[in-house]
């Protein structure tokens, strides 16, 4: 019987799923992904996690529980300390595997290898070697699996750059049916948000889908090239040490001054530490100069859908109106 490795559809799944999938499959494992977020996944997560945690962490708990119920042999939740030199993801990522292990009952074995590229980028291959040794003694095979995974991530990044959202890109990569990139809208809306919120249509209240329905073409921070966001983020007074935060600020700076972008939405998570700082920075530092209007939204477990929708509609109306008048930058802050 093949070994089953579970991957939660949460956190950095949206950036690394192809890496993980191809790595484990090359090693001969079966990869099982948790179900798409639904009400019970979210409520299981909230029940087992401390109240004060942010929504994405609670949700990730729910996905781990979902996998545990699928009788997998392992769940892969690496300790993602740092994915870039001198940077971190977030304190909660640092503690996530421990939080899960000590709060969720009846778990299969957790693979929580540390990935820490803060000091040395080459650390990443060591981390995968360590994981691989659980499944085979064949060093060559592990190396092969790692290379394969890396190639898949490259492919993912190419697809993201050409405008696909992560789950769409996965569908393209793994040969499933996929609707064509839509581009028929009359306005272009850019979204700044953590990947694990915006690309989860359940907790983001299907923001992307809603916008598309309203006739907008949507891009997210994840569709921008790494070099560009990093270069934009150097406008900050000090290097930002959060990798995702850096992407958000860099994307924010890019979008608000892009003539092709008609409106920017910054979707922050309630109680998210980094967001409380990056939202403030994006808003403040672009207030006087930005060309596109900016809408700040905060999302939490109890956010009523109606409230968000109303604000969204008002914003889109304003964007359209402004576009038709070609008015110079009007700053919209809440």
């Amino acid at each position, binding site marked *: 019987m093949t070994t089953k490795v579970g991957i939660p559809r949460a956190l950095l799944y949206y950036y690394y799923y192809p890496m993980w999938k191809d790595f484990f499959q090359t090693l001969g494992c079966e990869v099982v992904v948790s179900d798409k977020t639904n009400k019970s996944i979210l409520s299981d997560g909230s029940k087992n*996690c*401390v109240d*004060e*945690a942010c929504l994405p962490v609670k949700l990730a708990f729910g996905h781990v529980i979902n996998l545990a119920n699928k009788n997998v042999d392992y769940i892969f939740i690496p*300790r993602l*300390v740092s994915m870039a030199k*001198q*940077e*971190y*993801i*977030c*304190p*909660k990522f*640092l*503690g996530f*595997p*421990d*939080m899960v292990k*000590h*709060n969720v009952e009846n778990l299969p074995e957790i693979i929580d290898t*540390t990935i820490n590229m803060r000091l040395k980028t080459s650390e990443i291959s060591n981390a995968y070697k360590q994981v691989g040794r659980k499944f085979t003694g064949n060093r060559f095979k592990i190396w092969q699996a790692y290379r394969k995974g890396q190639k898949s991530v490259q492919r993912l990044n190419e697809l993201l750059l050409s405008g696909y959202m992560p789950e769409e890109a996965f569908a393209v990569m793994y040969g499933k049916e996929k609707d064509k990139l839509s581009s028929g809208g009359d306005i272009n809306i850019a979204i700044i948000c953590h990947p694990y919120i915006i690309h989860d249509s359940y907790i983001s209240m299907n923001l992307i889908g809603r916008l598309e329905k309203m006739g907008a073409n949507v891009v997210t921070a994840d569709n921008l090239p790494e070099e560009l966001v990093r270069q934009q983020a150097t406008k*900050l*007074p*000090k*290097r*930002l*040490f*959060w990798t995702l935060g850096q992407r958000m600020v860099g994307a924010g700076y890019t979008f608000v001054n892009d003539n092709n972008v008609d409106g920017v939405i910054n979707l*922050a998570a*309630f*109680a*998210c*530490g*980094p*967001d*409380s*700082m990056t*939202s*403030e*920075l994006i808003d*403040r*530092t672009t*207030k006087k100069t930005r060309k596109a209007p900016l809408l700040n939204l*905060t999302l939490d477990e109890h956010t009523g859908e109606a409230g968000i929708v109303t604000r969204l509609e008002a914003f889109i109306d304003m964007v359209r109106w402004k576009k038709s008048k070609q008015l110079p930058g009007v700053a919209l802050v809440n």
Partner: protein
Amino acid sequence: MKVTFPHMGNLYICVKGMLEYLGIEVTMPPKTSKRTLTLGSKYGPEFACMPLKLNLGNFIEASELGAETIMMAGGCGPCRFGYYAQVEHSILQDLGYDYDIVVLEPPDKSITELTSRVRQITGKKSWWKVIQSIRYGYLKSRAVDTVELLSFKTRPRELLTGETDRALNQALKEIDRAQTVEELKLAEARGSEMMQDVAVDSNRRVIKIALIGEIFTLLEPFANLNIERHLGRLGVEVDRSIYLSEWINDHLFMGLLKGIRSTKEYCRNASPYLNHFVGGHGLETVGSVPVYAKQGYDGVIQLFPFTCMPEIVAESLLPKVSAAYNIPLMTLITDEHTGEAGMITRLEAFVDLLERKQYQNYQGARSQELEVRMS
């Protein structure tokens, strides 16, 4: 150039001492108050952690008194503290406060970044003098720690309510006033004497509680709603998992001073519950519980401001640690709306629980003793 810096409990005594030692003019913000918080909440990001808001309020209030340059600590992540200065500065600029800001933090590229920043404050003073001043500031923090530790012991045992705090204020004033190393030594000795002079009932049975958690909330009485005082009056002897001198060494001197009480022991004890550093003092918080349990403490209280990331990680692990070491735990999360009265009620209930537990243990031990004797 009038220099100011944010409040954090008695930190001002040390930093002011250090700067004045160098002949630098200091303009301190008024003691942190309701107004400070109101200002900070009004202008700060809604979901920022409380220390950021209080810092901001401090700076606004200090500016009203004529402060021109801010000196503060920084960091390189993963916690928000490392970006406080930049966000605060940007807010102040937007509000029209014309501050220069000097951040003391580990340099990104080379040590000259740091030295030139220090030079912005110290001007042409010799490095020798600067080092002397650092040592002096550090000695002040040690003196503060000494008298505070004594206050932990006397407060629950004082015969006259409020005597400890009166003595402590006096002792801190003396330490603050000292101008030279010699004077400081005298002040510390006198301060200790004052604390020991507080009339106490040394036979009183006290409950021992360790306060653990986020450093700013632990050290700033405004942020912790005077928890030490309230506990003391409920007959509780407290300890704090972090002292001022440790923070000074870690954050202002970047760990330059070696060999002082170190929180390494806490970090060692955090495993198997938390196996990695998580920023702030999250790891220390988790690891301090086994240490305090082994030292015979009756309970622990974790304190942190709403949305504090490292402490949320710790919070999710503490129930396990507390159960494993059979030491009761209470978590207090503070925000703008936390009221002192509500907190006191919770503290009373917790102390009550600990007293009953202590009594049961005592009874249990006695009945065992009787059984042994009878058999």
